[in-house]
């Protein structure tokens, strides 16, 4: 598995009503081919913004995204450079990601035509891609509104396949679908990742699905990654207090009287993030120093990374007994 995506110190700002908002405040991340990285976090954490910056829809204010050894540039009016076209995105809204006035076939072959293929050959390929995502070939002549949400997402995936992607950023690809479609689309993505040895960043707020399909998980809070580790590590032994809060808030459908724990307070306004560690106002184990210094991202003995002053580099995860 080679490293196919690398983010270094990525900061993404945007303006709203004349004010600058830092949606992403310094993120380091890597992705290998054949790997599914789950990117989770609650509203306002910046995961969608990060996804857009990775792909080039937004330009990082600071920092760099490297794809397959080359720097990712922002989308411009001209054609996106050929080598970047292998970096694709699946969007959340199945209704907005397909042009309602164009036939499916013409939309799928876009990637091929732009790459120089002739129309006839491209249409044949389109049938292949449709089959790959489980749709019949007569779909080529139909319009998006004739398909369900789940089918539209599969069409969007077929369209992305036309660009022979080696990395797919999936931004909440199944959130807007019903349960059975969610399973279908998720399984399709998992199979494609395996078949094409792709890397995938799976952005989602649905922690249960992330747990099933991701190899590694990155947890974001207010524009920063607080912890990255393997899925097992994150679920079974979360080390960052926010990760702990997140995992213990997930309900269990097992009929036990398990009551998910809540996390008091609200996510702070990204325009005015707290000083020091961003999580400290809500953290059950915060120390006085947490309000002053931002914690460093350290690597623990089990190779996971976490940004918390209670965790020391090179040591096993500190299981944090609540003081008092």
């Amino acid at each position, binding site marked *: 598995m080679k490293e196919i995506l690398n983010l270094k110190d990525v900061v993404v700002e945007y303006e709203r009503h004349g004010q600058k908002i830092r949606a992403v405040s310094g993120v380091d991340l890597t992705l290998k081919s054949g790997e599914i990285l789950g990117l989770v976090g609650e509203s306002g954490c910046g995961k969608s913004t990060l996804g857009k910056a990775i792909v080039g829809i937004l330009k990082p204010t600071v920092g760099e995204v490297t794809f397959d050894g080359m720097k990712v540039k922002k989308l411009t009016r001209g054609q996106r450079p050929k080598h970047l076209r292998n970096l694709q995105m699946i969007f959340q809204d199945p209704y907005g990601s397909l042009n309602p006035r164009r036939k499916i076939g013409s939309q799928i072959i876009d990637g091929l035509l732009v790459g120089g293929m002739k129309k006839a050959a491209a249409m044949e390929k389109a049938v292949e891609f449709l089959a790959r995502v489980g749709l019949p070939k007569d779909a080529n002549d139909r319009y998006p509104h004739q398909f369900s949400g789940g089918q539209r997402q599969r069409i969007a995936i077929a369209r992305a396949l036309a660009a022979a992607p080696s990395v797919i950023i999936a931004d909440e690809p199944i959130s807007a679908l019903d*349960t059975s479609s969610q399973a279908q689309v998720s*399984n399709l993505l998992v199979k494609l990742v395996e078949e094409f040895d792709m890397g995938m960043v799976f952005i989602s*707020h649905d*922690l249960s699905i992330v*747990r099933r399909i991701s190899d590694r998980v990155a947890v974001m809070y207010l524009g920063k990654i607080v912890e990255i580790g393997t899925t097992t590590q994150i679920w079974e032994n979360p080390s960052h207090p926010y990760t702990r809060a997140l995992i213990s808030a997930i309900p269990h*459908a097992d*009929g036990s009287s398990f*009551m998910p724990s*809540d996390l008091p307070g609200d996510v702070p306004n990204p325009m005015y993030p707290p000083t020091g560690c961003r999580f400290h106002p809500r953290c059950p184990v915060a120390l006085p120093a947490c309000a002053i210094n931002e914690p460093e991202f350290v690597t623990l003995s089990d190779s996971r990374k976490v940004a918390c002053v209670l965790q020391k580099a090179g040591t096993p995860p500190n299981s944090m007994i609540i003081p008092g």
Partner: protein
Amino acid sequence: MKLLKVTDLTVTLATSSGDAQAVRNLSFDLGHGEILGIAGESGSGKTMTALSLLGLLPYKGRATGSVFFDGREILASSKREYRDIRGKDIAMIFQDPMTSLHPMLTVETQLTEHLRHHRKVSKDSARQIVLELLNTVKIPDPAAALRAHPNQFSGGMRQRIAIAMALACEPKLLIADEPTTALDVTVQAGILKLLHQLRDERKLSIIIITHDLGVLSSLADRIMIMYAGSEVESGKTSELLTQPRHPYTKGLISALPGLSQDGKLLTSIKGMPPELGNFASGCAFHPRCAFAESSCSQALPPALDISDSHRIFCPINPFAQKSDITS
């Protein structure tokens, strides 16, 4: 005596292709201080059930059967009688709290107005009561919250304000339709905890409607699973979730990503839930059921008791055990 006893509830709606039944001969009850969870996919009729209890069916919708609430029959109530019931005896909160809250009025105005509509209290007392309510739902700094507008709050806070409004007139029953579906998981946990507390402290009965079995597992005492307008299984939460008996319930539970750990591929029940007006004959689930036999399409499935707190509607009972009451 039960707070709510629904018998043979049938809700018929007018669609562009004629009348269709959204709820078919549904019967269930609810005790004081009990939390009932109604689960099902979209189109199962769960929301229409709730709306029929409050007389809020869409234009040209009608309900038949019996809804016996707090000692009296309320199904055939007039518009005015329903207006009295709503908010005072039965209150409802929705997936989007802005369904209940006015974006242009302050929190104080909305809540006190609502309160004074149903109870004869002075403006000052109303303000006091509302302040206490905001405290109960754990809004930080209630005094400041009174002066604010709903859009100044986060989604979770808005839902808490909607709950405060629902509680203002001390209803005996709160119906919550997908109250946490649009919320982050930690915020959802807060709302579930709050609802639990409200039940414990005020003996509030709650009907919670959702497709999320995890939410019901945490909150509900009993669960009723609905499909195509009818009940397919109901029982005590722990029993139903650990020993589901109806093929549909079993399918739903197997499809949960969180529960089984077998690899990355998810399972789901084959096919799609039927659309209104297009329910299959006999047991509506039979086209998707792995155990269906010819008898399933011929008659409505009978009730089978598994224990005295667990029953299914299925003529086959494919997972029957010797301990079942009816086998």
